[in-house]
């Protein structure tokens, strides 16, 4: 499904389709309803990194002047923008040149317009502004501004309080403006029925995903965090169709089957961990194997469990805009630490977690911001220990394997010691 999606993006120009580049929130159902092809910048960077194909784009970015400490998603994607723009000015085809195609395994079509709707991280909005400049300020851009859910008032909290209500309405109003902008770009009236239909599929897919996650509270867990990582693309940006619903139905069925047959996600589950941080796409398989080798089942995490249409009850399929706006606000980097402590500790308790792994992603400060405070809170309030390892979202050079290995061993020893004391 994912490969088909990208193939579709790459062939958009040949099929005379308009292409929108966007970052941040999953506004893609709006593009789908408008008959556009959509290309999610972070997803593209993640894909390149997961396939170890990120280097050419990162080199192009470096040559253009981006410093290596800049968000590697942005750096990779801006590198693609630089290459795409060069190719566009070379032959006006809007397709990355042949050598770059081979290196990138991609044919990223130049955008007809940009939409930016980035929650949590200020870099997200600035990044698209720079893409706009890299393309010579000739490609139209639309910004949706998503307020940070800081939690100023005593009534502020997860899905509640005046701040939440006002922010939800504020974003919903902007989505209506976005739709008007999309109409002006396509020259067609917006198909509201198509949006309602798309959101109906997303709501159902999300319900199935949440139900399946719920089943993973069992010990041993039938599926792990890494399995949920593998289905992020599906819930985040694939077309919302019956196929999407079928996919998550199959995921859930598989988990039920595993539970019934006693097949665990990790062969010999002895420890249950929570993963905090953005994914380290270069090391995805590697990390999954490393933790499994130590009998650690990574049962849940902030990036998978507190993101991606995670509150389907908020979606009113007849009038989906408000629920969409609310999900865009529910990005796991868009909360103050107070709310994140609540979410993390809640999940740690519900999933019976023994320890937390913090991925200190070098160039993604949005995710690292609250990590030390979360670690302290989990230790203080639940007695759950944690460990940090250094890596990055899409730049392999920041990953430090020795640190991960030694800290993991140390944390497992701490947990063993505590267990033996408890049983003594």
């Amino acid at each position, binding site marked *: 499904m994912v490969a088909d999606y990208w193939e579709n993006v790459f062939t958009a120009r040949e099929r005379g389709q308009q292409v929108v580049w966007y970052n941040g929130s999953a506004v893609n159902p709006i593009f789908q309803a408008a008959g556009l092809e959509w290309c999610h910048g972070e997803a593209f960077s993640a894909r390149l990194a997961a396939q170890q194909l990120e280097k050419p784009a990162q080199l192009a970015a470096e040559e253009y002047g*981006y410093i290596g400490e*800049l968000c590697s998603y942005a750096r990779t994607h801006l590198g693609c923008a630089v290459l795409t723009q060069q190719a566009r000015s070379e032959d006006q085809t809007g397709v990355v040149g042949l050598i770059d195609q081979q290196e990138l395994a991609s044919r990223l079509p130049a955008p007809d317009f940009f939409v930016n709707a980035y929650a949590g*991280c200020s870099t997200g909005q600035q990044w698209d502004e720079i893409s706009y400049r890299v393309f010579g300020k000739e490609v139209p*851009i639309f*910004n949706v501004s998503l307020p940070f859910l800081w939690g100023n008032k005593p009534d502020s909290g997860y899905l509640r309080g005046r701040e939440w209500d006002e922010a939800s309405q504020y974003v919903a109003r902007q989505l209506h403006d976005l739709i008007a902008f999309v109409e002006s770009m396509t020259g067609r009236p917006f198909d509201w029925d198509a949006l309602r239909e798309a959101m109906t599929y997303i709501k159902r897919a999300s319900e199935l995903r949440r139900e399946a996650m719920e089943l993973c509270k069992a010990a041993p867990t039938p599926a792990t965090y890494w399995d949920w990582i593998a289905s992020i693309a599906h819930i985040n940006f694939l077309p919302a169709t019956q196929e999407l619903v079928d996919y998550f139905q199959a995921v859930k069925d598989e988990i039920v089957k595993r539970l019934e047959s006693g097949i665990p996600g990790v062969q010999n589950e002895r420890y249950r961990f929570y993963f905090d941080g953005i994914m380290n796409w270069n090391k995805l398989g590697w990390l999954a194997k490393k933790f499994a080798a130590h009998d650690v089942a990574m049962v849940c995490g902030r990036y998978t469990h507190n993101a991606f249409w995670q509150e389907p009850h908020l979606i009113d399929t007849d009038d989906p805009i408000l629920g969409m706006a609310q999900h865009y606000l529910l990005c796991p980097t868009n909360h103050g630490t107070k709310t994140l402590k609540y979410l993390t500790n809640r999940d740690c308790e519900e999933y019976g977690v023994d320890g937390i792994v913090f991925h200190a992603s070098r160039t993604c400060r949005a995710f690292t*911001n609250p990590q030390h405070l979360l670690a302290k809170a989990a230790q203080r309030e639940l007695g759950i220990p944690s460990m940090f390892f250094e890596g990055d979202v899409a730049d392999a050079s920041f990953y430090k394997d020795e640190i991960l290995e030694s800290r993991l061993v140390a944390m497992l020893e701490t947990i063993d010691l505590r267990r033996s004391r408890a049983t003594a």
Partner: protein
Amino acid sequence: MTQPSAGALSTLIEIAENPTGYVTRWKTATGGKAIGAFPMNFPAEIAHAAGVLSVVVQESREPITSGRNLLTEFYCGYTRNLADQAARGRLDVYDGFFLADHCIQLLGAVDVVREEGNRPVYFGQLMASMGDPWTRTAVDGKMLSFREELAEFTGRTIGDADLARSIRLFNENRRLLRSVFDARRAGDATFTSAELQALVKSSMVMDKEEHTALVRRALAEARAARRDGRIRLHLSGHFCHAPRPELLRAIEDCGAIVVDDDLFHGTRYISTDVREDVEPLAALSQWYLDRNVSVPCPTRVQHDVDWDAYLLDSVRASGADGVIVLMAKFCEPHMLYYPELRKALNAAGVPNLLIETEHEGLPLESVRTRVEALLERIRHSQLANA
């Protein structure tokens, strides 16, 4: 609060170097409340109108210790230091904190301030996308929320007349400081760039009326000097916190003279006045929007405002021979915009150099070598064009 016997400039420098000392003295003398405001756009006029001393929290010089366990090392020097100051109780002199800017690293640090301390922290997020049809209304709403919050914080209402008075005092202060910067552009060299920084930094800390009076005295006491034949430089960038004075001195010691800048602790902070002929809160909203046009900032998103074009215009206007971009290491908006600056400067044939700064460790020797190389390049091109 200030020591009248000292030379006014030395007093200003002393306050710039030790803001906490000033705030403590001010609180003792007035019995008033002080708030720590985080850079770069908090409308301090509203706090002033409520009788509060609003201080832009400055980076301290202490090495980072406890803060290491609260924020990782790949944050800009300002935010790392902020977390450290919070952890060590160095911010206890403030009765509350206010923030208007959405920078992700800054939010991380301010959340540490909130979690580690017990003072109220209010974030009124001024939207960073400046040109949308709803920007103005959203900014108006935030200005109103600042007024409400500060009224609650102080227990007093903030009337339009109070606000208008504060706006007048702040404008007067900005105008005075701008006159000094304008003079520098026109060839005055009375103050070094480190001294000019102290004038601005102390303005961020002090009561505005007192500051204005002290700057007037410093101007009266100063011995006027004209610019000599040294190579003229523009310093660009460095948001939120001040580049170290010793860095500025090292640059000038290499045989250059700074003739203009767009630093936050410089032209950026004093660039824009608040209109006095419209309703005060509306004027503050307009100020926020105008500011990004006066001196564009990459923390904002505004399609028809270009920092690169602004920089080239400034260089032409001041006659600078080259540009040094000072970047707080890890500052994301600056890293994102930097290639656009470099591209524009190179295309216009303006020699330029990037220097990154960190909270700890300023490699002065290597800075000197690099600045000298830049100056050499400039001399060569001047000879070639002569």
